[in-house]
C-alpha cells in the first residue's frame, strides 16, 4: 500500500491497518490527524452568541438602501417605545392587511375577524384563545375596519382615545413623518400614506416586537411566513398587495 493513499481512518480497513502497523511515519500522521480532529471538535462546540442574528440584522439596517425603510423604521421605533400600544397597533395592521385580502372591497368589522372561523385561504385565522388574548391585553382600544377608497388606497382606520391620539401626533411630528391633519367639528384625523410593502416590512419587524410577548403573556399569532413567505400562490397575492398603496387614518374617538 502506498503511504499517500492514507487519510483519516475511522473504520480502519485491514490493509490500511496493516500498513499503519509497519509504517511509523504514517502511523504518526494518523495519530496527529486524530488528535487534531479531536481538538477541532471541541472548538466547534463553541457557544454561538444569543444575539448573533439580531446583531447582524442591526448592522444591516443602516445598509438597506430602500427609501421607505426610514419610514417603516420610524414606525417601529415608536412601536418599541410603547410596548403595549405597539403590539396592538402592529397586530391590527396585520389583521387589517389580511382583512383586505379576504374581503375587499367591502369594509370589514374587525370584531368579526377576531371570532374564530374557517380560514378562507391558507393564511391562518386567529384562534379563539389568541383573539381573546389580544382583546384582553389591548383592552380593544383599536378596532380598525379596512376598505378600498375611491382613489385606490387601502384604508385602515385606527380609532384612538385622546391620549393615544396625542401620542401618535407627537410621534409623527418628532419623526418628521409627513401627515395630514383634518380637524372639523365632527372629526379629528391624522392621515399617513405609504405602500403595502411597508406593511409587510412592518410585519417582519413585528417578529422582533413579538419578543415582548413574554412580558405581555401573549401568544405569537402572526408568523412571518403568513405574509412574507409561504407558498408560491400566496406570494403572488402578496406581490399584488405590495404594489398597493395604503392609507392609515388615526381617528380621535368621539366621546
Amino acid at each position, binding site marked *: 500500500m502506498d503511504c499517500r493513499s492514507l*487519510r*483519516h481512518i475511522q473504520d480502519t480497513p485491514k490493509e490500511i491497518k496493516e500498513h*499503519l*502497523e509497519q509504517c*511509523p*511515519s504514517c*502511523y*504518526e*500522521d494518523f*495519530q*496527529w*490527524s486524530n*488528535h*487534531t*480532529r*479531536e*481538538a*477541532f*471538535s*471541541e*472548538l*466547534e462546540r*463553541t457557544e*454561538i*452568541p444569543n444575539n*448573533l*442574528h439580531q*446583531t*447582524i*440584522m442591526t*448592522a*444591516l439596517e443602516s*445598509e438597506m438602501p*430602500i427609501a421607505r425603510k426610514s419610514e417603516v423604521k420610524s414606525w417601529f421605533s415608536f412601536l418599541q417605545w410603547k410596548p403595549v400600544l405597539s403590539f396592538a397597533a402592529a397586530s391590527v395592521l396585520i389583521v387589517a392587511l389580511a382583512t383586505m385580502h379576504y374581503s375587499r372591497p367591502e369594509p370589514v368589522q374587525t370584531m368579526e375577524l377576531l371570532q374564530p372561523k374557517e380560514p378562507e385561504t391558507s393564511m391562518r385565522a386567529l384562534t379563539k384563545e389568541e383573539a381573546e388574548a389580544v382583546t384582553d391585553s389591548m383592552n380593544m382600544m383599536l378596532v380598525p375596519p379596512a376598505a378600498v377608497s375611491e382613489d385606490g388606497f387601502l384604508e385602515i382606520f385606527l380609532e384612538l382615545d385622546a391620549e393615544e391620539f396625542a401620542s401618535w401626533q407627537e410621534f409623527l411630528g418628532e419623526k418628521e413623518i409627513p401627515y395630514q391633519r383634518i380637524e372639523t367639528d365632527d372629526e379629528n384625523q391624522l392621515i399617513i400614506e405609504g405602500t403595502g*410593502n411597508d406593511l*409587510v*416590512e412592518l410585519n*417582519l419587524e413585528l417578529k422582533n416586537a413579538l419578543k415582548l410577548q413574554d412580558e405581555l403573556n401573549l401568544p405569537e399569532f402572526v408568523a*412571518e411566513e403568513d405574509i*412574507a*413567505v409561504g407558498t408560491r400562490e400566496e*406570494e403572488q397575492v*402578496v406581490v399584488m398587495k*405590495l404594489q398597493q398603496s395604503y392609507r392609515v387614518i388615526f381617528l380621535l374617538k368621539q366621546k
Partner: protein
Amino acid sequence: MGENEEHILRLVNEALEQRPGAFESLIHAYERKAYLHAYRLCGHREDALEITQEIFLKLYRNLSGFRRESSFNTWFYRLASNVAYDYLRKRYRDDKNRSFSWDDDQEDRVELEPMDPTPWPEEIVEKEDLKNLMQQALWKLRPDHREVLFLYDFENRSYEEIAELLDCQLGTVKSRLHRARTELRKIILERRELFEGYLRHTNQKGGSSHGL
C-alpha cells in the same frame, strides 16, 4: 445539485429580487457557519461577532456578484474568509509587535507570529491532557494554517476541494498543510516533557524512533 443547494439558490434569487424576508432567510442559513468560521480564524468571540457582521454586510452588497461559477457554499466561504483575513490583517497592522504574511512563497522570510488570543497557560499545560494541549496549540498557529488543518483533518476534505475553497493552487494547499503540521508539532514538542507517556505509547505502537 442537492436539495439544500437548490433551496439556497432560490433564496439568493429571491434576495436579489428584494423579496421581503429572503435575505434574512439567507442569514439564518449561514450565520452560525459564518460565526464559527470567523471564530476559528481569529480566536476571539467579540472579534468573531464583528467579523460576522462584516461578512453579511459584504454579502448584502455583493450578492449580485455571485456568478454561479461555483456553488454558493464555496462562494460564501471565500467571501467570509476574505472578510476575516482583511480584519486580521488590519489587526496585525495596528499591532506593531506582530508581523505577518499571507504569502506562502514568502513564508520562510517573515517572522511568523501567530495570533495568540491567550498566553500559554502553564497551569493548564501542567494539568490538562494532550487534547487540551492540542487545542491550545491550534490557537497558537497562524490562522491560515489552522484553517487548512481544519479543512483537511476535521472536515475530511480533499486537496482539490480545499484548493477550490481557498481559491489557490493544489501545490499551495499541500505546502500549507505541511507547514501547518510542522508548526503544530513544533509547538507541541516545546512541551515534550509533558508527553513522555504519550511518546512511549506512540513508539511502542508504531515502533517509531521519531514519535512526537
